């Protein structure tokens, strides 16, 4: 039998004004298990806590019921107080007689009656409480970063610089991500590769960073501090140790000229050979063979690259390899892509090669791009004279089938950038930007946009374009409205650039499922708290970096990458993690081994083992559920799925809840 002390708080007049505190004390004094009951002005104060500690010592209390404010407010306080007096902190229950009683009821008699009932429920529960102990789990001092774009690179560098080992897994043959495709960056117009390439090289050379390019995360198990990840290293068909990156193979690949394999990196604006590096500064500078297109893999003939390779690095026999590595923390930096434009037939993207996306424009303006940086129309290779930019293509759409409900955030700025860069090179180009709103919050951002208007005379028109019609003469007819001037506009253009909405990398859904990290309706990863924990996933040990969490520009991405790194470092700096003691427990004698609980566990905390049990003198090997206490977060989903009642939750056990029900219904 427990020896329970009940402490009723006045909370000044917050409780005492509506609840007859003295009466509550008198009425609960004779409840089963109660050996002591008292009230005090402020139970949470120093003096109040002192009173509790004294009572614990004097009456040898084994359980406490505090009738006070919400347990969300002071449960921790009172648990710490119990611990100070040598009582297990989980022997404390709080009856919420403020938020859920005194503050919402006016009639004193009624409120007092309810307070007594709430106290009784808490007393009944404490009678069944058992001392619980927080567990400890070790921390593997290594981090995984999924995605090798600027977000992943920055996070990895920051973690590595703090002295912890980091692995980057990148799906593409090279790190660099979207940023490596860009020409210049706003608002300072530095060349993207000039600022990115050094970082890529640094990643490659950093003693604490291991790169897995052309690799994918295949399986994730474990939990915060103790993840185990299977990484599939796809067969490159080139031995990275032998390859010198000379590029002979790519140059000689017969498919380079005749293969018609669109280059992913150049967004299909030019072709690439079957053995290729995505771009010249690729890291690592090791080509891969695209086995789907390679003649050797398709027919068994050719083999030119293997013959030509001076260091004999080409290896057609190479197989995918799975490596299993342990990590303490995982950062998701899977980045973004732009949406598919098939649904926007009115903009003629699929009809005319001269209607391009902004990211294609980046490639066309890049000195290393398909046109050597010379802006030209893809149809006739002429330099465009009149260029129209259309903003918000697929952004800010209400219906899911049309596009995305959010603002893609970066388009206003990069469009101003594009307009200015074009004007810089070819001043007699006419540029018109059709916008809904120009959104330029950010340091030096609005100044940047105004420069496009004031210095470069870019024509900004408020009004969305209705239709783009390719004309027989090869030009494009743009029909739009100038809402401010009240005019409908039909103008000819040589090139139309669409600011397509961005969306999270489509692979993120798969990855989020593996990590049990939650994602929102738009497939962006969810933060643990939108304001206070913006770089953490609700799933412990998973952190967010870059566009995977939401639209953002490069400076923001880099700051978030740093923030995620700090969170990771904070985790890896610990030797042990405390685990929540309110976990599920399986009674092996009752367990059927039916796997129902494992099917509903969101954390993969339940596994099945064959164990020897002694059931009323019968020794048997049974398949029973085992709860990994470090993984279990104590949600209790398993307990209500379990038909036999074998699964129970510590701190909220079946009996504790039913006894509360009984006490309330008494």
């Amino acid at each position, binding site marked *: 039998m427990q020896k329970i002390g009940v402490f009723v708080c006045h909370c000044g007049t917050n409780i005492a004004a509506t609840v007859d505190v003295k009466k509550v004390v008198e009425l609960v004094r004779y409840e089963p298990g109660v050996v002591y009951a008292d009230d005090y002005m402020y139970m949470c104060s120093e003096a109040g806590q002192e009173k509790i500690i004294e009572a614990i010592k004097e009456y040898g209390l084994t359980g406490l019921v505090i009738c006070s404010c919400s347990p969300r407010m002071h449960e921790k306080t009172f648990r710490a107080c119990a611990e100070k007096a040598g009582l297990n902190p989980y022997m404390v229950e709080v009856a919420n007689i403020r938020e859920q009683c005194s503050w919402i009821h006016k009639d004193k008699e009624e409120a007092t009656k309810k307070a007594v009932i709430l106290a009784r429920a808490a007393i009944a529960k404490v009678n069944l409480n058992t001392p619980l102990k927080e567990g400890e789990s070790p921390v593997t001092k290594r981090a995984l970063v999924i995605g090798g774009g600027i977000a992943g690179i920055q996070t990895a560098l920051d973690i590595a610089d703090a002295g912890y080992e980091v692995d980057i897994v990148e799906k593409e043959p090279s790190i660099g991500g979207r940023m490596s495709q860009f020409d210049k960056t706003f608002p300072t117009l530095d060349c993207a590769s000039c600022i990115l390439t050094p970082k890529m090289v640094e990643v490659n050379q950093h003693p604490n960073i291991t790169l897995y390019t052309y690799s994918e995360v295949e399986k994730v198990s474990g939990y915060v501090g103790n993840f185990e990840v299977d990484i599939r290293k796809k067969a490159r068909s080139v031995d990275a140790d032998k390859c010198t990156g000379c590029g002979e193979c790519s140059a000689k690949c017969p498919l380079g000229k005749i293969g018609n394999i669109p280059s992913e990196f150049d967004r299909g604006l030019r072709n690439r050979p079957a053995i290729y590096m995505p771009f010249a500064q690729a890291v690592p500078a090791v080509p891969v063979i695209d086995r789907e297109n390679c003649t050797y893999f398709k027919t068994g003939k050719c083999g030119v690259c293997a013959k030509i390779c001076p260091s004999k690095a080409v290896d057609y026999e190479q197989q995918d390899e799975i490596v299993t590595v342990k990590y303490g923390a995982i950062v998701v930096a899977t980045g973004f892509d732009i949406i598919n434009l098939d649904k926007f037939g*009115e903009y003629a993207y699929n009809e005319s090669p001269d209607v391009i996306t902004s990211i294609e424009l980046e490639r066309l303006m890049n000195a290393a791009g398909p046109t050597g940086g010379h802006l030209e129309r893809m149809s006739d290779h002429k330099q465009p004279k009149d260029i129209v930019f259309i903003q*918000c293509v697929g952004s*800010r*759409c*209400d*219906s899911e089938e*049309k*596009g995305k409900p959010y603002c893609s955030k970066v388009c206003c700025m990069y469009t101003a950038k594009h307009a200015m860069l074009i004007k810089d090179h070819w001043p007699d180009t006419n540029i018109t930007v059709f916008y*809904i709103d120009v959104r330029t919050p950010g340091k030096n951002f609005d100044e940047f946009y105004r420069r496009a208007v004031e210095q470069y005379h870019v024509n900004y028109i*408020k*009004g*969305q*374009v*209705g*239709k783009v019609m390719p004309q027989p003469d090869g030009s494009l007819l743009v*029909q*739009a*409205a100038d*809402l401010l001037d*009240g005019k*409908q*506009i039909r103008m000819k253009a040589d090139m139309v650039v669409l600011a397509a909405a961005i969306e999270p990398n489509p692979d993120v859904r798969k990855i989020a499922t593996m990590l049990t990290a939650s994602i929102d309706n738009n497939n962006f990863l969810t933060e643990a708290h939108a304001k206070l924990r913006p770089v953490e996933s609700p799933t412990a040990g998973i952190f967010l970096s870059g566009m995977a969490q939401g639209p953002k520009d490069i400076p923001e991405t880099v700051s978030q990458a740093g923030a995620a790194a700090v969170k990771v470092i904070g985790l890896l700096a610990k030797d042990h993690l405390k685990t929540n003691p309110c976990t599920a427990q399986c009674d092996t004698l009752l367990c059927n081994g039916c796997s129902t609980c494992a099917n509903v566990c969101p954390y993969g905390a339940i596994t099945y083992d064959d164990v020897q049990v002694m059931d009323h003198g019968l020794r048997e090997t049974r398949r029973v559920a085992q709860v990994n206490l470090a993984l279990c977060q104590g949600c209790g989903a398993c307990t209500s799925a379990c038909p036999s009642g074998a699964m129970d939750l510590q701190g909220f056990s079946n009996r504790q809840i039913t006894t509360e029900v009984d006490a309330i219904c008494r």
Partner: protein
Amino acid sequence: MGFTNVESQVELIKEISGSDPYKCMKCGKCTASCPSYDEMDIKPHQFASYIIRGDIDELLESKAAFKCLACFACIERCPRDVQPGRLVDAARQLQERQRGGDYMQPEEVPELLAEDLPQQLLVSAFRRYRR
């Protein structure tokens, strides 16, 4: 004609059209797409504001309300699902109801067909009332 209760008119328009004028963000894609632009005194992107303000009389007395061809360009392209074409159509229906008109039975249609009725009108009527 003078509506006594503007609010209920607005609600009725919302109900008939099934679209929410408050969703409009004035992007102007409807106005940009409108083939009858030159004929319209109130432009499609303004329809939502007229309804929000309760200026229904004015909308109905405008040329625009009856110059809309119901070509559905604005309905197809509206990124916010406001679909100005539906709004103006609802306003027209509302007026028709005020005059005592109501739903038509399919049997009544053949009689009403005139020789020189433009086919587009028929097609657009079907598109409009398909559900």
